[in-house]
C-alpha cells in the first residue's frame, strides 16, 4: 500500500515547524515517528498535501526534571521512555505504559507526542497521562499554552491541538512514592487494549471505554469516601460509553473495566 503523493519538508527547529505549519495550513501534517500517521496514509484515511518532519528537531526530544514535574519532549520515543532510569524513578507508570505500546520495532519509532496527538482512546500513553494528571504543552503562533490531560482529549482521534499548533512537551508530576497499577487486556501480544485501566494515587483512567480515555470518577469518589478497593472497582464502568466490535461487546467491556480497575488499584502491572 502506497500513500498518496505529498510534499516533504524537514523542520530544523520548533519555530521552523510552526512557520511551515503557518505556511501550509490545514493541508499539512506533522511527522515524527509516523507510526500512527503513515498507516493511515497508506490506506488513504489521511492524505496530507505536505508532511513536516519534526523528528530531527533536537530541542523537542529528551526527558528532564523541572521543579516538581518531569518534562518530556514531544518526539521522545517509546523505547527511550521505557528505558529511562529518570522516568522509572520519577513517573514509573509512564515508563511502564511506554513499554506496553505495540512491539519493540514500533517503540523504536513511535513518540509520546505523536501518540497523544493521535488521541486513540484505546492507546497506552493517553490513558497513563490521564491517570497521572499530567499535562501537555502546546506551542502556536500566540505562544505556549499548557492543557491538563483532563481537558486535552475531545473525541476519538481528536484533541484541542489547533491546525497551526505543535505539541512540544508532556509534563508529568514527579511521584516516586505514589502507588500505581497498570492493566491492559489484549488477545494478541502487540494489540491495542480491549480495555485498559491505570491507577495512580486516587486517580483511575480507562482505555477503550468511550471516545476518549476516561476517568473512572465514580470509583475515585468511592475511594475518597472510604470504600474498599473491591467496592470502588465495582463502580468503574459508571458513566462510560464503550463501543462494541469483534473483540468485545459493551457488557464484556464494562465487566473488564471493573476487573481491571480492581487489579490496577491493587498495584498489579501484569
Amino acid at each position, binding site marked *: 500500500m502506497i500513500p*498518496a503523493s505529498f510534499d516533504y519538508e524537514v523542520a530544523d527547529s520548533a519555530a521552523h515547524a510552526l512557520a511551515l505549519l503557518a505556511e501550509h495550513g490545514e493541508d499539512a501534517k506533522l511527522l515524527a515517528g509516523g507510526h500512527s500517521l503513515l498507516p493511515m496514509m497508506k490506506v488513504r484515511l489521511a492524505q496530507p498535501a505536505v508532511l513536516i518532519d519534526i523528528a530531527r528537531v533536537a530541542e523537542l526530544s529528551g526527558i528532564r526534571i523541572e521543579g516538581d514535574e518531569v518534562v518530556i519532549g514531544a518526539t521522545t520515543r517509546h523505547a527511550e521512555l521505557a528505558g529511562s532510569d529518570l522516568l522509572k524513578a520519577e513517573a514509573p507508570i509512564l515508563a511502564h505504559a511506554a513499554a506496553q505500546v505495540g512491539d519493540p520495532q514500533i517503540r523504536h519509532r513511535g513518540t509520546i507526542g505523536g501518540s497523544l496527538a493521535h488521541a486513540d482512546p484505546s492507546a497506552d500513553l493517553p490513558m497513563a497521562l490521564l491517570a497521572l494528571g499530567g499535562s501537555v504543552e502546546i506551542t502556536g503562533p500566540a505562544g505556549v499554552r499548557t492543557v491538563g490531560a483532563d481537558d486535552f482529549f475531545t473525541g476519538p482521534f481528536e484533541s484541542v491541538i489547533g491546525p497551526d499548533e505543535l505539541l512540544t512537551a508532556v509534563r508529568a508530576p514527579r511521584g516516586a512514592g505514589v502507588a500505581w497499577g497498570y492493566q491492559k487486556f489484549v488477545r494478541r501480544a*502487540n494489540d491495542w487494549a480491549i480495555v485498559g485501566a491505570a491507577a495512580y494515587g486516587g486517580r483511575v483512567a480507562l482505555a477503550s471505554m468511550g471516545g476518549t480515555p476516561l476517568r473512572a470518577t465514580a470509583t475515585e469518589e468511592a475511594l475518597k469516601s472510604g470504600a474498599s478497593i473491591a467496592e470502588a472497582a465495582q463502580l468503574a464502568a459508571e458513566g462510560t460509553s464503550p463501543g462494541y466490535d469483534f473483540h468485545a461487546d459493551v457488557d464484556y467491556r464494562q465487566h473488564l473495566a471493573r476487573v481491571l480497575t480492581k487489579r490496577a488499584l491493587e498495584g498489579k502491572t501484569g
Partner: protein
Amino acid sequence: MTEIKLTVNGTARSDEVEPRLLLIHYLRETLGLRAANVGCDTTSCGACTVLLDGESVKSCTVLAVQASNRSVTTTEGLVAEDGTMSAVQQAFRENHGLQCGFCTPGMVMAATSLLAENPHPTEQEVREGLEGNFCRCTGYHNIVRSVLAAADKLAGPSSSTEVNA
C-alpha cells in the same frame, strides 16, 4: 523528488526518491536488496524488519526520506565479505530456526537488535522481544532456541538460557 543520502549495509548511497516511497520499497526495488519481505504491510508481522541506526524498525512504516542521513542494515549486510554469516544467522541455521523462511530475515534483524540491547536475555525476554514478528511455521520454539544460542555465542553462556520445548 527529494534527495536522500544514507548508508546501506556500510555503503554510502545518494538517490532521488518520491517522498512517499516506503523504505521497504527503496531497499527492494531501488537497491535490489530482497531479503526484507513485505508481509502484512500494516506494521504487524515484522517480515520487513531492518535496522535503522542499529535499531529494529518495520520498513513498511518508514519513509525512505526518514532514513536520510541515517544508517540502514538489512540481512544481506550481516554477512561478512567472505560469506561468513553473523552469529544470529548461523544460530538460526544450526537450530532449525526456520521452515519456509519468509519471516526469517525479519526475525534475524529483530533478534540482532534485541541482543544489542540485551546481550543476556532470558527465554521470556526473547519471546517478548520478538512479539513484533510473526512466524506461521515453526511455533517459535526453535526461533527462541536460535536467539538464545546466538546470545551464548556472542556474550558467553548465562544461567538463564534453558529452553523447555
